[in-house]
């Protein structure tokens, strides 16, 4: 078996790439921004219909999580109702976190997991714009849309012969959410703007307060209009007779990603800063703000595009929610809808992950202050899945938030591990008595704290996720940054691994100490496949990194020797599955949501169906995946799809995508009207979990292109539904390449491999493969593929 998963990434190419992710210095979450770059005279680009989602009814105020449309600038996010008579925005900031370091363990040696101690993401503010005369019952021709090309939510309707339009967007350069109300036909806007906090603050044009954890937060609103009057009072803003109205809102916290400062910037007054931001934005026209936003947003969104085929005129005539329902009802592929779903994930990524904290279970989109599982960072699949699609869909810069987070938390994670992990009450403590490096709990917060149970292998999984980003970008600067994380995680496992002799042999192997394979089966199993696979990958990555950076040569040798002794899972003689525990028996739930024992298949590279992995291992992984079933929910389906794509089973991979596209009604698993993924946690109660909105697009990309350093495979799992014709443009491939690919009748017609640092790679399709070599910046075009 291949023990070096990173062959093929040439060192020299990395130098050229350092600029790509050079600006990794962690910035405060909410800060005075530099003067924005304003497009000279860019036309406000028209959206294409393929990149537009639209609906014929506004959101219900009580169902915002399923129906509200998300906007966000990577830090500040909101759900908008788009009701003509009452626009409601539920606004939050990625750092709006209660709780703290949470370093007093419960009696079982695990972490408290409450909204006070561990904390929760919460809402920052509610903004309402009431226009009483525009009651929904009194308007006609209502339409709202999410323009994915421009990152703008639009609403239009007719009232008494006048067409009214509004646009909502969250601009990153100006760091404000903009609501721009216009009309044509002699109409007027009369109503009120109300900004309220969600933690007991009274309505006001600005407010500021602090959580018990000391985190200060604040928000501010401003409005200006033409042709009428806009009056500010203590509690809000009134407008009357306005031909046009602009409402601006901003806000944030004094969170700082710096453990040494207790994750606070004491010099920052969020209320004052928010007021400054809306005042500055109010000095600009709404059109200027829009153009600035669109230029900034589209620079990322336009990096990648794809077509999965052409939808029928009838499908195109349906609004997005009708289309989701028709897709499930009629069973006919709707390739444009499916591509739009992928782009919606990209929209969420751009809106949710730029320059602040990474996205947790719900990213920036909440409908209350009590999100399930605190809207936190779950380190046993969810946060990893959130970022699998970043590089795969041309959004490499959006990955930085995850890296920055891990780096900022590392001092706290190291401290907690050192002080608390070997607590005698902790069932997962190191029985060696040794303790080093860092690990995490299953849940983590942004204040250095963990929640719920210890998660020893969480460090390895975070590191392999960070490593994959390195494989895509090849940035040496980036590698230097994450190196301490890799090294600390290796040190943790050096202290933790146990030596055992395999029964009936004299072979000594290293196994992980007592652990829980997420999230089922025995709580105290040694050598769980999940940990063995992740540590095996971690150790390999560390050795590669040390060599690349010419550091820690001796230590890397030690780690490499440990790696050679790591136990790797066997095929169960009783079930034929890859074992999840060091046991031939199935000790958990057969159709459990997690695919923990398959981390070596995806996202790992150890198990490959290309002849390089023993056939019985591949067969055992396939058998286990088959047993897990096709009917799970959101992220679990996405993960299954990714695994089937790796196993080159296009129809199963596609069916799981289709399963996630089922309409969610009454809280059922599937896709909500706003395309958020809904997980039915209990009968009739569905909650939003964003991971599937990212994991499903990642799976779609994995069906179109597989890569690992030195190897690219075209259309590894192209389903019949997309086989007719299509293209992808701007897809990153591990090893330092970008791929543009066209296909027809299931076969590539043209593949263009651009080097973004990589020099040589094989490019495979079917049974054929060729090796291409080029200079960084150059590209090679391949045609004439034969299966």
């Amino acid at each position, binding site marked *: 078996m291949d023990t070096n998963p990173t062959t093929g990434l040439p060192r020299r190419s990395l130098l050229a790439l350092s600029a790509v992710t050079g600006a990794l210095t962690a910035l405060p979450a909410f800060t005075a921004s530099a003067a924005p770059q304003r497009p000279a005279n860019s036309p406000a680009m028209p959206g294409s219909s393929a990149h537009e989602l639209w609906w014929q009814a*506004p959101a219900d105020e009580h169902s915002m999580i399923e129906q509200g449309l998300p906007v966000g600038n990577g830090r500040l996010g909101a759900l908008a109702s788009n009701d003509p008579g009452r626009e409601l925005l539920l606004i939050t900031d990625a750092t709006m976190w209660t709780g703290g370091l949470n370093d007093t363990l419960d009696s079982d040696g695990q972490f408290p997991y409450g909204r006070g101690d561990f904390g929760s993401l919460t809402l920052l503010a509610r903004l309402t714009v009431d226009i009483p005369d525009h009651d*929904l*019952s*009194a308007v006609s021709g209502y339409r709202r849309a999410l323009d994915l090309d421009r990152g703008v939510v639009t609403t239009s309707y007719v009232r*008494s012969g006048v067409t009214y339009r509004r646009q909502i967007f969250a601009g990153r350069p100006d760091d404000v959410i903009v609501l721009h109300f216009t009309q044509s036909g002699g109409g007027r806007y009369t109503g009120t703007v109300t900004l309220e906090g969600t933690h007991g603050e009274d309505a006001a044009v600005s407010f500021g307060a602090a959580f018990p954890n000391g985190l200060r937060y604040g928000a501010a609103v401003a409005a200006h209009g033409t042709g009428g009057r806009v009056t500010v009072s203590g509690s809000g803003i009134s407008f009357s007779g306005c031909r046009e109205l602009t409402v601006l809102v901003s806000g944030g916290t004094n969170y700082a990603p710096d453990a040494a400062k207790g994750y606070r910037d004491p010099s920052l007054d969020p209320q004052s800063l928010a007021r400054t931001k809306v005042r500055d934005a109010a000095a600009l026209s709404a059109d200027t703000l829009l153009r600035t936003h669109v230029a900034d947003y589209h620079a990322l969104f336009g990096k990648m595009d794809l077509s999965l085929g052409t939808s029928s005129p009838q499908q195109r005539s349906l609004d997005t929610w009708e289309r989701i329902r028709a897709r499930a*009802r*009629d069973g006919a592929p709707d390739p444009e809808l499916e591509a739009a779903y992928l782009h919606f994930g990209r929209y969420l990524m751009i809106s949710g992950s730029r320059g602040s904290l990474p996205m947790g279970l719900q990213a920036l989109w909440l409908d209350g202050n009590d999100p399930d599982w605190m809207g936190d960072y779950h380190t046993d699949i969810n946060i990893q899945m959130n970022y699998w699609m970043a590089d795969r869909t041309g959004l490499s810069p959006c990955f930085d938030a995850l890296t920055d987070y891990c780096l900022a938390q590392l001092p706290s994670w190291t401290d907690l591990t050192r002080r608390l992990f070997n607590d005698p009450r902790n069932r997962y403590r190191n029985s060696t008595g040794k303790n080093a490096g860092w690990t995490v709990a299953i849940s983590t917060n942004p204040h250095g704290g963990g929640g719920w149970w210890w998660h020893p292998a969480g460090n390895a999984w975070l590191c392999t996720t960070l490593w994959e980003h390195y494989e895509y970008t090849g940035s040496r600067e980036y590698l230097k940054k994450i190196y301490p994380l890799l090294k600390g995680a290796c040190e943790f496992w050096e202290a933790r691994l146990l030596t055992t002799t395999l029964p009936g042999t004299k072979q000594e192997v290293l196994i992980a100490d007592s652990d829980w394979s997420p999230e089922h089966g025995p709580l105290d199993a040694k050598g769980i496949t999940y940990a063995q696979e992740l540590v095996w990958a971690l150790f390999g990555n560390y050795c590669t990194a040390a060599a690349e950076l010419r550091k820690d040569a001796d230590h890397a040798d030690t780690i490499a020797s440990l790696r050679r002794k790591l136990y790797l899972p066997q095929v169960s003689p009783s079930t034929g599955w890859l074992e999840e525990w060091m046991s031939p028996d199935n000790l958990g739930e057969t159709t459990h949501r997690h695919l923990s024992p398959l981390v070596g298949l995806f996202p790992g590279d150890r198990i490959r169906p290309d002849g390089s992995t023993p056939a019985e291992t591949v067969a055992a992984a396939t058998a286990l995946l088959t047993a897990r079933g096709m009917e799970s929910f959101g992220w679990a389906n996405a993960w299954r799809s990714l695994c089937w794509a790796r196993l080159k089973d296009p129809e199963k991979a596609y069916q799981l995508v289709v399963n996630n596209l089922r309409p969610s009604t009454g809280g059922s698993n599937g896709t909500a009207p706003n395309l958020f993924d809904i997980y039915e946690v209990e009968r009739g109660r569905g909650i939003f979990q964003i991971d599937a909105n990212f994991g499903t697009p990642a799976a779609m990309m994995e069906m179109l292109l597989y890569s690992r350093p030195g190897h690219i495979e075209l259309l590894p799992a192209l389903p019949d539904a997309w086989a007719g014709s299509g293209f992808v443009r701007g897809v990153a491939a591990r090893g330092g390449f970008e791929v543009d690919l066209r296909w027809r009748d299931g076969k590539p017609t043209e593949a263009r491999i651009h080097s973004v640092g990589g020099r040589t790679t094989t490019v495979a399709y079917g049974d054929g493969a060729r090796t291409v070599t080029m200079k960084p910046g150059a590209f090679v075009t391949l045609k004439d593929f034969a299966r």
Partner: protein
Amino acid sequence: MRSSSYSVMPARTLRALVVLALAAGATTAAPAAQAETTAPALAAKPYMGWSSWTMQSSKYPGLNPDGDYSYLTEANVIEQADAMAAKLKKYGYEYVNIDAGWWMDKAWKSGFDQYGRQKPDPVRFPSGMKAVADRIHAKGLKAGIYLPAGLEKGAYGDGRNPVWNADGCTTADIVYGDLRTTNGWDSAYKLDFSKPCTQKYIDSQAQLIAGWGYDFLKLDGVGPGSGKSGDQYDNVADVAAWQKAIAGTGRTVHLELSWSLDIGRVADWKKYSQGWRIDTDVECYCNTLVSWENSVDDRWDDTPGWTRHAGPGGWNDLDSLDVGNGRMDGLTKAERQSYATLWAIAKSPLYTGDDLTRLDSYGLSLLTNREVIALNQGATPPARPVTPSDPQQVWAAKNPDGTYTVALFNLADAPAAVTAHWASLGFTGKAAVRDLWNHENLGTYKEKITQALPAHGSRLFTVTPHGSALGTTAYEAESPANTLAGNASVADCSACSGDHKVGNLYLGGKLTFDKVVVDKAGTYQVKVAYISGDARSVDVSANGGGATRHKFPSTGDWSTVETVSVPVTLKAGANTITFDSGSGYAPDIDRIDVPKSSS
């Protein structure tokens, strides 16, 4: 002024009435005379007015300060009559109806006269019932009063109470020997109309209220209905006796029956009365007047079976229209508009139970929208659903002038788009749409109109077609070309096309039309002719694809065919369309009509 009734009134009665009329003074005489001489045929259109029960029944703060139902007083009734005259009369509202309790004290203890007839409570009505009617008439309005069915237990008086104007008859002579009870609350002894004295008792009650000058009687607790069934609760004879007794008074008195009348006896209700409550009380008996979920929303399911029975002379009564004050009503604006829309298009009587002195501006606009009132009061037929009773549903009626009344409803708890397809109305092409609530022409729409509706919201349109009749292809359910599964079977059906239908569609029973041919792929509004004595659901699918479950509204009985249109996505060429009962009970299917063009 009493000439019209002179010939049929017994002498003693006439004298008594004249005395009463004179005692009330001259001011009442002229309006009363005017009302009588200009009155049209009874219930030529749904009546409009106000009823006291809504406020009596509510726990809204301040309404019933002296205990439950204490709102009902002479002063409050007069106050409402004054407000109605000032605000609503010019829009057609005319009846001021006193509901239950006028003969009960504040502890809800009944009072009766020596003849076992209900006696006004002197605290509630210190001036007496006639004086109140006179005051109402003086405003140019009509007065309504209330009685329960049967002989109230308190009126029995050991069977020795004489029946007024019935020599030798006592209360023992009008009930059954076993004193079996009747009405929706078992609060009365059942009247035995095989006995000659019994009609006399009803006559005596009728003479009493006619003598006071009442123009309207709500007879309550009537069965079968009012939550009861069986012979003991069969009050059809009571209702017939009331019709006869009213005729005997010579006064024009509208007889309205309550509540949840048995649709199986609708012929009797039509024969003897001018209106019948089709459902339970709309009130919530809570701290608002009504609530959406308590029973306002039930009316969308409960009305369709009754629709065809409404017409001049007798109407489906959906109960009070409590939309006048959002805070008191306990409803959103959208809910209030939907409530008013359904009542208007169903041709229900329009009587509000709101506090007319406290109507808010939106409530007043709902109650006084002349276009909507004209729809309810005009010569247009009642609307019924043209789509299944799904959360988003469309009701329509074809009007004599060729236009359509079209109402869109969104009964879901969240905003939703609702589409009315012209195909479901039977035509194709363009049509002009007028929005009645907003008094606005929305323009011309091709093949359909889609509007965003708020949660529990509605729109009400008049649609004027400019297209042509929709061509359709009929497929009979009983055709041998179809496939039946499970217990599904062909049955005789005289009301059905081809004299047959497919029934027994339950617990897996399934009907598949095996060869439905269309020229082009698309979504077709397939009109389904069906029979279903109660509302039933069925899974509809095409070509073996995913099914959509639709609830078909009740047709009221098992011998009447109605139609609804369901969207079905078909491919060009031959298709299958399946109606699957799934795990429940589905309607019987008569036929489907597939449009020649998609929507």
